[in-house]
């Protein structure tokens, strides 16, 4: 059994008197790929943000000590005119790298990480001029700079074409296998969950299930979460 990296007990988030999500309990072990699924507005991103400490929460969240986290946000909105190159963005995360004086070592680190995600040609490009797929690769590279033990991916392929989506998830799977990076993945696409996740949490303002996708995602759970249409869903595996 791999080491436990995170455990959440009865996690709930209430903002302005409104409970956005409640009763989330799960544990996560090193090397896992956990998918967090549910319909729009179910509280998936809320849970992610509570785990990351951006949103206040009740219940218990226990992280492994001194854990390093990488995060690829959902629909990364920023000013497209912001004058930042890919290299400058990544240099934010390189330890000891100064913004003004960029030693060769920093450039090598950045170049290697961009190579890992297949984006080495984008180094000098302005962030605002990247396509959706290119931006996702760069954001993944950004999340990987610090050699994270765990990666949070919040609907990371929103707005990316099907081929780009497939490539992205293959890359994630490779990173998980080669570097044993634990992954928490938010998605509302059941295909993705069945294909890539080893465990799944299904939520709709409260936790509906937790476990291996084929066991946990019963017809009842899917009906409760997604409505009548999905109960007849059949995946291809």
């Amino acid at each position, binding site marked *: 059994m791999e080491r436990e990296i995170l455990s959440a007990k009865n996690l709930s988030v209430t903002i302005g008197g409104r409970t956005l999500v409640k009763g989330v309990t799960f544990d996560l072990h090193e090397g896992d790929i956990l998918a967090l699924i549910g319909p729009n507005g179910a509280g998936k991103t809320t849970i992610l943000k509570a785990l*990351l400490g*951006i949103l206040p929460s009740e219940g218990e969240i226990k992280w492994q000590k001194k854990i390093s*986290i990488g*995060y690829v*946000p959902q629909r*990364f909105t*920023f*000013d497209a*005119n*912001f*004058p*930042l*190159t890919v*290299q*400058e*963005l990544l*240099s*934010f*995360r390189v330890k000891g790298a*100064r*913004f*003004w004086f960029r030693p060769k070592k920093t450039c090598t680190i950045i170049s290697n990480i961009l190579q890992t995600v297949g984006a080495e040609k984008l180094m*000098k490009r*302005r962030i605002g001029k990247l396509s959706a797929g290119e931006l996702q690769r760069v954001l993944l590279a950004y999340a990987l700079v610090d050699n994270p033990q765990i990666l949070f991916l919040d609907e990371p392929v929103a707005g990316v074409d099907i081929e780009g989506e497939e490539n992205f998830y293959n890359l994630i799977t490779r990173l998980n296998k080669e570097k044993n990076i634990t992954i928490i993945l938010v998605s509302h696409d059941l295909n993705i969950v069945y294909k890539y996740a080893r465990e799944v949490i299904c939520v709709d303002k409260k936790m509906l299930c937790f476990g291996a996708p084929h066991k946990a995602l019963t017809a009842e759970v899917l009906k409760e979460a997604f409505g009548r249409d999905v109960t007849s869903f059949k995946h291809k595996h």
Partner: protein
Amino acid sequence: MLEFFQSEIFRIVAVGISIGITAAMLGVFVILRKLSYFPDALAHAALAGIALGLLSKINVVLGAAIFALLMALGIAYLERKKILGLDTIIVIFFSTALAMAVLVAEFLNVSEEDLMGYLFGDILKITNETVLLAVGIALLAVIILIIKFKLWTKISFHSELALIEGVKVNRENYLFMLLLALFVAISIRVVGTILIGPLLVIPAAAANNVSGGFRGVFILSIIFSLVSVILGIFLSTIFHVSLGPIIVLIAAAIFVISTILRR
């Protein structure tokens, strides 16, 4: 040699360069954080501070700095509370401060010439104390920006991402506003209330037009600002026109050229 350092032209150039460099550096963060109206609001608060300084006979620069800072903190607090949009909050503070400044100026019978001096700047009236304060604030700004550059760039680009990475975003925002308030207080006598905003915004906007990366924007903003200030001092001395407006017009001309050359 000592005579040169005490000469009027040295004082003007020293203040001009100090204010030009500080404005260029802070201006990059002002435009990228979409805070272009913010310095105007601070400048009007500073005007109220000057008026109250004259009334209570405390140092006007100190009065301006305190008032600008109070307004910066007030705006930042309300913005964090998300009660209203930033633009609305700024207009409320801005107009309240201006109303206070006008009433106090009326009460004190401040001459029209003096009032114009505070609105559009009058570099001939700067004192040695102003020169030292301007140089001091410029040095402070350079030191803080060297230390905070990476953090502030990250916050300007994506504050949520910075927050996730453990950056104390609110604390850094307050420090930025403090520096901005100090800059506004010291530059009001030189470029005037109305022209502080453009001095911060235009060189940085021109630099953003023509540079590919953030470092380039920063360096070009300083160059454009210094060219505007030094050329402005030169032209205003020759043609005996107000310094603030001429600086802004030169910066605007650079902006037009940069827009044509836009990458």
